């Protein structure tokens, strides 16, 4: 593996500090995602090249809206769905871009996509979870995954 969990932690901490200005704490007792019944959003950027896979950032919609409110400088209630998608997509884009710098040269980064639903499972075919990190911010869970393809 070309990367360590603490490198992913550093990327996420830098985004939460510099972009959002709020705290991000490592989740002390990781929870199983199947136990989560709120509306969850998953933002993803794909990486292709010498290393192939995806970097995903998932959180309850309520946290995504809080992030969007901070990024747009507005009240949470005033944030639209499009703005929430844009904000979470940009977070995955920044995190994925920084993660890509840990990989072999020549990898390409996709534009972000965002999906949402209750108890949805985000799958990249032929991939396995190379890393999973769980954090808590503003009381809500944030799940970051590195999905590595093995074609």
């Amino acid at each position: 593996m070309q990367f360590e969990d603490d490198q992913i932690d550093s990327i996420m901490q830098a985004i939460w500090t510099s972009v959002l200005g709020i705290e991000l704490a490592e989740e002390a007792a990781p929870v199983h995602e199947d136990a989560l019944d709120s509306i969850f959003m998953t933002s993803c950027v794909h990486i292709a090249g010498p290393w192939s896979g995806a970097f995903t950032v998932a959180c309850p919609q309520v946290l995504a809206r809080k992030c969007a409110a901070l990024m747009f400088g507005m009240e949470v209630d005033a944030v639209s769905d499009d703005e929430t998608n844009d904000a979470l997509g940009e977070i995955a884009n920044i995190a994925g871009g920084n993660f890509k710098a840990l990989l072999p040269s020549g990898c390409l980064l996709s534009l972000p996509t965002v999906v949402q639903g209750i108890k949805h499972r985000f799958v990249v075919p032929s991939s396995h979870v190379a890393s999973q990190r769980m954090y808590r911010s503003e009381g809500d869970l944030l799940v970051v995954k590195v999905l590595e393809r093995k074609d």
Partner: protein
Amino acid sequence: MKIMIVDDSKAMRMIIVRTLRQAGYGDHTLVEAASGPEAIGKLSKGEDPDVILCDWNMPEMTGLDLLKRVKVEWPKTKLGFVTSESSDKFRSAAAQEGAAFFLCKPFTPEGLKAALSPVLG
């Protein structure tokens, strides 16, 4: 002084605007574009920014392609990258094409000021 911000993410454009104000560029005229073609459209209609802050990965046209176009058609306008691409390969490509600076996201007001100061004084 006029600064153009080109990024397909409205959230990131908002953050860049806010950070520019924090970095002391609040009295500059700020112009936004959501894509390379939109930026070219504004430049073609007479917008004359002193510097363009540009994302790299965007739909329709990459920031690097926009830089190549700006160099030819608006040679007095400087363009620097504000991007999540942070590898040496991208830095080198930007430098080769004459980018004014290369700033990685996430960035701080200090980092943005350090990138812009040599360009805007």
